[in-house]
């Protein structure tokens, strides 16, 4: 059943992709026999055929996810989005510390462990990657504050 639902959704996407390929994509002028639309057209037809096959002959492997697990995954995705949202404004150190604190707490760490782990991953992570390896990471408030003080 899950296969059929997935196949139908994928089929709708393939048809949408194909619709764009067959009607919207068009080069104003071109010298080559194949324009920008042909390749997507081929792909959309192939994808649609595969989807049809999956709908007609599904695997039968059920999509088994406990609702409890789904909640966990939902929470994880909300957390990740919040992390992404705060990444630049708060900077690497603070946002990482917060994210690690909350996620490790959810995954079963005690409050003290979570706080220590968050602080360590934010601080050590920044020192290791931004200072030592010279990677480009968002500085954010803490570093700007330190810069302003010195």
């Amino acid at each position, binding site marked *: 059943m*899950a*296969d059929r639902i*997935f196949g139908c959704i*994928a089929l709708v996407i393939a048809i949408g*992709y194909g619709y*764009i390929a067959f009607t919207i994509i*068009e*080069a*104003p002028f*071109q010298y*080559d*026999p*194949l*324009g*920008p639309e*042909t*390749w*997507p057209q081929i*792909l959309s037809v*192939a*994808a649609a055929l*595969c*989807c049809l*096959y*999956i709908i007609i002959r599904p*695997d039968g*492997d059920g*999509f088994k*996810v*406990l609702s*409890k*697990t789904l909640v*966990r*995954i939902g929470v*994880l*995705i909300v957390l*990740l*989005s919040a*992390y*992404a*949202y705060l*990444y*630049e404004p708060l900077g*690497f150190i603070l946002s990482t510390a917060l*994210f*690690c604190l909350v*996620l*490790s707490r959810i*995954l079963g*760490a005690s409050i003290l462990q979570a706080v220590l*782990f968050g602080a360590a*991953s934010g601080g050590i*992570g920044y020192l290791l*990657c931004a200072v030592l*390896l*010279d*990677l*480009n*990471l*968002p500085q954010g408030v803490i570093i700007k504050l330190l810069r302003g003080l010195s």
Partner: protein
Amino acid sequence: MNEVLSGLYQGFGVALDPMNLIYVIFGCFSGTLIGALPGIGPINGVAILLPIAYSLGLPPESALILLAGIYYGAEYGGRVSSILLNVPGDAGAVFTTLDGNPMAKKGEAGRALSLSAIASFVGGTIAVILMSLFGPLLASVAIHFNPSDYVALMVFAFTCLASLVGKNPVKTLLGAIIGLMIASIGIDANTGVARFTFGIPDILAGIDFLVIVIGLFGMGELITLVEHQITGRLKALPVGKSFVSMKDLAVVKWTILRCSMIGFFIGVLPGTGASVASAVAYGTEKRIAGKSGATFGTGDIRGLAAPEAANNSSAGGAMVPMLTLGIPGSGTTAILLGALLLFNVTPGPLMFQQRPEIAWGLIASMYIGNLALLVINLPLVGFFARLLTIPQKYLTPLIAVLAFMGVYSVVSNPFDLYMVIGLGFFGWLLRKMGFSLAPVILGVVLGGLFEDNLRRALSISGGDWMVLLESGRSIVIYILTVLILVLPPLYSRIKSRKAAKDTVPAE
């Protein structure tokens, strides 16, 4: 032959440069480290570490050497969690658990780990030797390939993938097409027409390859880890003091040699990597062992050595089509190929002539890497085993941190952070639906190449599609494609009929 020797000479010149030597060893070490983490396979390891290696600002040959070291190391490290935890890091390590874990349960974990390290070393070294012999040969043939031959090769690659990888060929094919579709997003380089961008400026240049890799593999893995958290704590078996003996090696020497050859050639086939190689090697050895093969699956050292040798030698074999044709032999080499493209190096037959320092430097570094891995692994195995005890509650957040760090340090665009999360969920969903992700990433990497060659071929012919069947080379490749498509189902049908015949008189 002369060309090979002079190439190797030049390659060792590059690889023995002190800095590059450090990168090889560092790559091998960190690869083993990340491969040994429970549940993280080579492909996820390379995916997570790729952007960090990229943003270090190394010259291309050094960065590639580093990445190849990580790749090799992760293949090595994978066996630690397979043997001690019975948790394979990826599909290629499944067969290692079959005999490795029972050995560890019998208290012979040390023996299993050291034996598999030696099997991996021999497999890897044989693969590199074969690679230095066949690579330039294949490149000198491939240099004459025209666009329509490349189209034929791509068709062959995707057919191999559909026919040999995964349970359901249609799903594998759909996965590859999804990858090709993702690759078609962005401005078409030939005409400047924007395709499937829906007016979003962030994806006008296409979705960044690193974002796709980190999303599908890094984030997808993270979600899977969180999903499986519920199943309770894993308990690692102790390593113990046992060690591989000369007698063991004498028993498995032919097994290792045979499986290294099998692994290499399966690795060379485009699209089929370690998972197919280790499965075929295990099956073959079990058949060759005959009656004495009944102990396979209960801790037989041959059953452990076979998949490990094949596994590592296919890792080398998969490099051959990547370097010589620009068509990766496995999901992980697809990522390495994408890495090369990031450095503006286009792999292919010309690479051996135009950028020999990269092609040969990489090959030479693999000789060194193999040796380094053996040296690192034999004494430090206890240390790597201790990594398994890192609690998930700390490991999981760190994967997210590494993934974000990787994306941000390369693209510096917060939009891509959301993209990674979305792709991660998509990758998790695909895996949940029984798709394997290697075809998707192969599609993403090959999408541009496939389309360009098709368009070029038709430009040459002026729009006549028959050009695709004109050269003898393409026809040979298409015949091989049909064989790959027809033979495996035929073989399994004959086998099942034979099995049916065998069981009838017994009843």
